[in-house]
């Protein structure tokens, strides 16, 4: 792997902190006007690595902050000041994204776009809660709760500071609950007849082996049967479950773009008024489903458990979200897996069951990538076979080529539209109201890199691992080219004009949307490096053979009375013994290292032997 996450992360931190902390204060803002998603992303650029499972970028214990880390964050002050800077910044965020009653909001704000060019969105339009914001908030709140829990333990005692920390912890916990409730109420089941447009699209997706429509329907129903049976357990906050009663209908499940119209309230420690009626259509969208999954994954992380970050109500909410998480993963994995000769997932690009009018077909590749993401997360739940992983690796590589991430793009190529302007998801509302709002998705390259990294974590063979790392390097090469070089956002992202020449100049302001995703990729790269190197049976067996030969020859030297040969010889053999012990310890986990040590040992033992020609046999006496 050529990606060096520590160095890259610190460079990014340096740029992000210099941009975000000016005149002694945290400044929200970037390419888009401040909004609940972008501001969370901006904070997460620091908070996410600082609270990741691997502790290289810790900030909450100033005594343990690395020297280079401290240097990179000089713009925030000295290491001792950094937790307080973050405290103020995250507190501002919490205050800013609460309504008049102090209840958390997840408004789309400036990230929302008008479906029709020239249409100006009203402030009312922009005050609509979005799943992306909820998911980012879950990640941010968990990071915050863990960060300040550990910060408390450093023995802070200034009364005002303790009060401020407590205030933030309460605010973060309330926001976390609200985000979880929001996600519960955004999960939905969509049922449709096989003869509807959606039905036809789904059947077309699973039609990989040329079965008749009846056969296909029967097989599809059979493979979704258990999911269909389990879905009714997910009642809290879920819309659309009654549609499942019609056995003839097909269904899909996952997250819509926001709280679904008619979604029932959920039992939680939240005032009734916090659960406003929803507006979103009761139809899952792949992007938002995956976005929700990313937040939910953090709820069940090892760290969340270890630091005991959730209240009992939140634990119960988390269990309910987990159930939906599993259902959605199982559902989309089952569809993706359809087909004997070729899986539905490999049939690129994926056809969504619902397509808006103006959507460019080339952006369908997003759906392939999102389904692949879901399949990979599903594989993390079990020990997948290597060939399963290999076929997904191939799909990711193919997507990288098609998206012109790992191939040069020619001017005006349609593939560029996947990145700029990206996928536009119309935010359809219930009852066929005219759609005015859209959500813009432009994270193809970083999503691809993140999914590749997640797949590397599963690979057990050296070949597949290397192949995936090579792919990751290539994708990173593309992402790196998109770093902003000049202007206020220098060192941050995203400037796609180098890989995709001919695009308009979009000022030098950073996109926190993209930059936060780059950060996630780097954190994923850290976890890849943190795992122990992959080994294989052949390597271990070769190392064992060499070990036994070296050990044997060493003992023979001793038996020959080598220790009588004086100090030089004794020192040599003592060291050889130490090296053999080192090699023995490395055989299982680092067979390559063991072999390298043993080669040297064998050479040294041989030179001792070579120095003793069989004088008698050569007849020179």
């Amino acid at each position: 792997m050529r990606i060096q996450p520590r160095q890259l992360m610190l460079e990014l931190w340096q740029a992000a902190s210099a941009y975000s902390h000016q005149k002694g204060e945290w400044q929200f803002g970037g390419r888009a006007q401040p909004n609940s998603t972008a501001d969370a992303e901006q904070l997460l650029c620091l908070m996410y690595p600082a609270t990741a499972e691997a502790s290289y970028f810790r900030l909450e214990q100033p005594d343990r902050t690395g020297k280079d880390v401290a240097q990179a964050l000089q713009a925030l002050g000295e290491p001792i000041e950094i937790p307080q800077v973050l405290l103020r910044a995250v507190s501002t965020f919490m205050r800013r994204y609460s309504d008049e009653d102090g209840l958390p909001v997840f408004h789309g704000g400036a990230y929302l776009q008008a479906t029709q060019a020239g249409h100006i969105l009203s402030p009312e339009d922009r005050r609509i809660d979005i799943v992306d914001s909820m998911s980012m908030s879950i990640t941010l709140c968990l990071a915050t709760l863990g960060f300040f829990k550990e910060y408390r333990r450093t023995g802070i005692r200034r009364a005002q500071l303790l009060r401020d920390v407590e205030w933030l912890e309460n605010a973060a916990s309330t926001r976390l609950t609200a985000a979880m409730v929001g996600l519960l109420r955004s999960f939905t089941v969509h049922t449709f007849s096989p003869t509807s447009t959606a039905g036809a699209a789904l059947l077309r997706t699973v039609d990989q082996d040329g079965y008749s429509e009846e056969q296909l329907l029967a097989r599809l129903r059979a493979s979704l049967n258990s999911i269909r049976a389990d879905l009714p357990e997910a009642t809290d906050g879920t819309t659309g479950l009654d549609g499942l009663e019609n056995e003839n209908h097909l269904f899909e499940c996952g997250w819509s773009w926001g709280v679904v119209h008619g979604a029932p309230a959920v039992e939680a420690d939240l005032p009734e008024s916090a659960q406003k009626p929803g507006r979103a259509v009761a139809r899952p969208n792949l992007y938002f489903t995956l976005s929700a999954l990313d937040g939910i994954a953090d709820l069940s992380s090892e760290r969340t458990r270890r630091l005991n970050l959730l209240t009992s109500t939140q634990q119960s909410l988390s269990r309910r979200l987990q159930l939906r998480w599993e259902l959605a993963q199982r559902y989309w994995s089952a569809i993706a897996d359809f087909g004997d000769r070729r899986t539905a997932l490999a049939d690129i690009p994926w056809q969504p069951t619902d397509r808006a009018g103006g959507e460019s077909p080339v952006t369908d590749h997003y759906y392939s990538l999102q389904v692949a993401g879901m399949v990979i997360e599903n594989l993390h739940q079990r020990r997948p076979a290597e060939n399963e992983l290999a076929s997904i690796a191939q799909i990711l590589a193919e997507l990288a080529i098609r998206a012109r991430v790992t191939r040069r793009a020619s001017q005006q190529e349609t593939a560029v539209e996947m990145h700029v302007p990206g996928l536009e998801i119309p935010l359809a509302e219930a009852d066929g109201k005219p759609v005015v709002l859209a959500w813009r998705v432009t994270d193809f390259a970083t999503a691809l890199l993140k999914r590749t990294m997640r797949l590397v974590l599963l690979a057990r063979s050296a070949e597949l691992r290397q192949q995936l790392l090579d792919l990751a390097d290539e994708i990173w090469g593309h992402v790196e080219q998109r770093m902003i070089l000049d202007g206020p956002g220098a060192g941050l992202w995203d400037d796609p004009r180098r890989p995709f020449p001919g695009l308009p100049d979009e000022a030098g302001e950073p996109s926190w949307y993209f930059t936060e995703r780059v950060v996630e990729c780097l954190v994923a790269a850290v976890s890849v490096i943190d795992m122990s190197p992959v080994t294989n049976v052949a390597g271990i067996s070769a190392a064992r053979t060499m070990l036994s030969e070296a050990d044997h020859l060493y003992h023979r030297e001793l038996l020959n009375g080598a220790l009588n040969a004086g100090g030089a010889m004794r020192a040599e053999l003592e060291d050889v013994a130490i090296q053999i012990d080192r090699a023995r310890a490395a055989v299982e986990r680092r067979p390559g290292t063991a072999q390298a040590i043993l080669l040297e040992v064998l050479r040294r033992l041989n030179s001792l032997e070579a120095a003793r020609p069989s004088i008698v046999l050569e007849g020179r006496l």
Partner: protein
Amino acid sequence: MIVLATSDKGGTGRSVTTTNVAYRRALQGDDVCFLDFDFGSPTAGAILDVESVSRGIKMGTGLHSYLHGETAEPARIDVWRHAGWSGRRRPLGAGRLVLLPGDEGGGEFPVDAAMIERCRQLFLGLAEEFSIILVDLSAGRSYAAELVQEATSNLGSGGEAVRWLVFHRWTRQHILAAHGLVFGERGIVNNGVQLGIDREVMEDSIRFVRTAVQEPDSAQLSLLRPAQASWLQRCHEELLELAARRRLGRSMMIGAIPLDPVLQWREQIIRDLDVRSTQIANPETVAAFEDLASKLTQQNYWAAV
């Protein structure tokens, strides 16, 4: 402000650092006086290069004699006038720099109430004249150290701020020793509490100074073999962790003085010309002295988070 310089072990660099800090602080324009309370081995005269008191003062007029009531006023030496390197004149813009030397052949002694009172009076008097009073205590827990802690704990209302600098080298034993000196059962903090000072106030008034530090990435270590560098970095990380656990971490540290070749070979004041003209000393060393000198009076470095 009274600054008490102490260390658990001898040879940490306490005297050399404190003297240089006093010099820097006077250059920054403050009136500074330096009290050599290391009765066992008074060295301030030598470090400041005041020939007549290089091993303490001879006439029985030093601090030692004053505390014993043998002289009404301890002798004072104007460093600007008497130091060998000085132009016999106070540099432009500098404050006073006055040394109160110990007695030659002073030695340790048991403390009585009269001594504590004399010591208290001495500090009260000096506080009116000087903005910074630096006191070089002896290593470890000594009579002199207890005397000063007791005398300064009770300077009356509106009393001077008292601050402690605890010096230690960057090794395992030094870290453990410095921890014991401050936080141990009979350590400075508990002593202060017994003298009626709030534990938190006590802890806020103590900061650590690392001396003769060689960071693994310093230029001087660039000639190490890779294996040595690898080992050294691991050692350094272990010390960082040890220091954090023993509450000597970054948040309790107020200065780190790099190892300097000049100081390694000779106990002396480093002047700007040693850096700029002859270039025998490192600019980082002077920067560290200046930094520590100015942080002495910056409240935010002396407040708990």
